[in-house]
């Protein structure tokens, strides 16, 4: 990857009247990166995307695309193209006319136009659909037309505003994979807005998690999942268990904790750390905890508890286990291995855990 960023956001602020929609967004997006803006509705992710597209003017700050300051540059002169949430297919035009809409101003001859439209349709798997009326397409096909239409101009950045939210689950999963492949194939920077954390994890090279107009954390999916820097991010992405803890001693990037239900242990302390908020807790993902077989030795540490609830998923079982000395259960996900029965509620279990998988929040 090159060092010059494709998009450079510097202290981007956006007010709608008194409403502070973007509160100082600073981030860089690399060339050919699949970047996601993830957050609950109203967090400003779509607003940020629209400011990059040029549909909204920013109140202050700086947006640079490919090194060029975008202040005062309208949407039609930005090197970005967008796939809209509603797809925004022109209903009075055919598929080919929709896809070729952006070519009008390039002054190409008819043969070149036809060639590029054909190429774009083929890229999204719609070869031969050019003559169809746009309104006669299914949801998935409309989405593909919107993609082809946006990519035909070979933009530097493709912006996707919740492009998969209107599709059913199967179609959505299929399109996720297709989008990743397409992005690798064309080598264009993709910026995806989504409220679906799973979608973001599956598709992105890096994710910016946003709350209330601010980026709470910007990292690759694995770091975001394993090392969230705040409880809020941890709760938004996947499932995280929290146990109250007290800090016994601290120094040089390590801290000794007394964790309720788990006992005393030593954990890494991230530089800076999250601000004090509602006491000190440690978080752990369900799959970092293991219910041990009778007589099985833990790989690291273990703690005793009682099964509170069992949720059977076929390939997996989720157990809610109340560790001794705690008042709230932790969720543990276990792969269902052949020959091992699913445990019953009230069963006494030993839970294997590792201090290395704990994340400290305070």
């Amino acid at each position, binding site marked *: 990857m090159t060092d010059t960023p494709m998009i450079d956001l510097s202290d981007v602020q956006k007010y709608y009247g008194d409403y502070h929609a973007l509160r100082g967004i600073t981030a860089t997006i690399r060339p050919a990166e699949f970047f996601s803006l993830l957050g609950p509705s109203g967090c400003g992710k779509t607003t940020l995307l629209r400011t990059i*597209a040029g*549909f909204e003017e920013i109140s202050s700050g700086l947006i640079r695309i490919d090194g060029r300051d975008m202040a005062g540059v*309208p*949407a*039609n*002169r930005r090197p*970005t*193209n*967008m796939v*809209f*949430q*509603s797809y*925004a297919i*022109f*209903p*009075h035009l055919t598929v080919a006319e929709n896809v070729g*809409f*952006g070519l*009008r*101003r390039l002054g190409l001859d008819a043969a070149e136009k036809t060639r590029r439209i054909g190429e774009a349709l083929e890229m999204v798997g719609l070869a031969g659909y050019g003559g169809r*009326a*746009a*309104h*006669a397409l299914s949801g998935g096909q409309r989405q593909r037309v919107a993609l082809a*239409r*946006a990519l035909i*101009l070979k933009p530097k950045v493709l912006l996707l505003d919740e492009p998969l939210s209107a599709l059913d689950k199967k179609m959505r999963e299929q399109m996720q994979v297709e989008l990743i492949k397409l992005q690798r194939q064309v080598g264009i920077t993709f910026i995806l807005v989504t409220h679906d954390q799973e979608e973001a994890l599956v598709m992105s090279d890096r994710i910016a998690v946003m709350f209330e107009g601010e980026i709470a954390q910007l990292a690759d999916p694995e770091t975001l999942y394993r090392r969230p820097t705040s409880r809020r991010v941890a709760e938004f992405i996947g499932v995280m268990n929290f146990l109250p803890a007290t800090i016994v001693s601290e120094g040089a990037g390590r801290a000794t904790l007394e964790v309720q239900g788990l006992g005393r242990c030593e954990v890494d302390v991230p530089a800076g750390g999250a601000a004090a908020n509602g006491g000190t807790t440690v978080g752990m993902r369900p799959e970092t905890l293991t219910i041990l077989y009778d007589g099985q030795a833990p790989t690291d540490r273990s703690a005793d508890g009682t099964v509170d609830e069992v949720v059977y998923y076929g390939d997996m079982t989720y157990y809610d286990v109340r560790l001794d000395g705690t008042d709230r259960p932790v969720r543990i996900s276990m792969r269902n291995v052949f020959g091992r029965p699913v445990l019953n509620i009230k069963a006494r279990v030993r839970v294997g855990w590792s201090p290395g998988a704990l994340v400290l929040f305070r």
Partner: protein
Amino acid sequence: MKARGLYSYTLAYLLFLYAPIALLPLFAFNDSVVIAFPLSGFTTSWFEAMWNDRAMWKALRNSLIVSGSTAILATVLGLFAARASTRHAFPGKTGIMGLIMLPLVLPEMIVAMSLLVALLAIGIDLSLWTVILGHVLLCTPFAVAILTSAFQSLDRSLEEAALDLGETPVSTFRLVILPLVAPGIVASLLICFTVSLDEFIVAYFLAGTEPLLSVYIYGQFRFPSNVPAVLALGTVLVAVSVLLLAVAEYFRRRGIARTGGTAGGGFV
């Protein structure tokens, strides 16, 4: 039983509405100056009389100028107002839109009188233009109402998509917005034209010495011998209206079918 009651009510209603209009061609072809049954014979001489009436042609020409200009002006103004009210928020929007729509409920008599007083006070001579002015005032609310609904059903991201693909706001309007609101524009032109064509009070007050069709027809009733010719004119107007409506409806349905909707509402 209840259904039958409603059925006869509907019949009676339609009869009340259309029987007088059906009488129009009946007497227009009747070979008598007296408008009464029994009919006395078939003739086309009233159409001939109408056709040879120079005053009628003058009034028709004037009316077409007034109604055509009114339809175009009111629709253009309506386009701006509808666009502004559906796309933008501005201070005093509710009040301004209310004032634009007000002539719809204001008594025409009052509008015509106050316009006459104002025009005379400013010292503007009455002419076809003053009638057009008055008619635009009356027709703009119709245009705004029709076009607002056309603009409201337009997905905003269609516009943004066109901008995003390199079009300027002006070319976006031409390539995307206009084609999609075209059925609304046609409907607006048609309604405004019709409203203006048969409007009487403003035409009577503001036309000065220029004859207009509605005023001319009213004037003809003073001379009983001219009435059958007026009925002939009415017959032609009804036929043209039905034809116009059918054509407009055809285009409206075609427009809807092209964008994938199913035709509903409308005039027919």
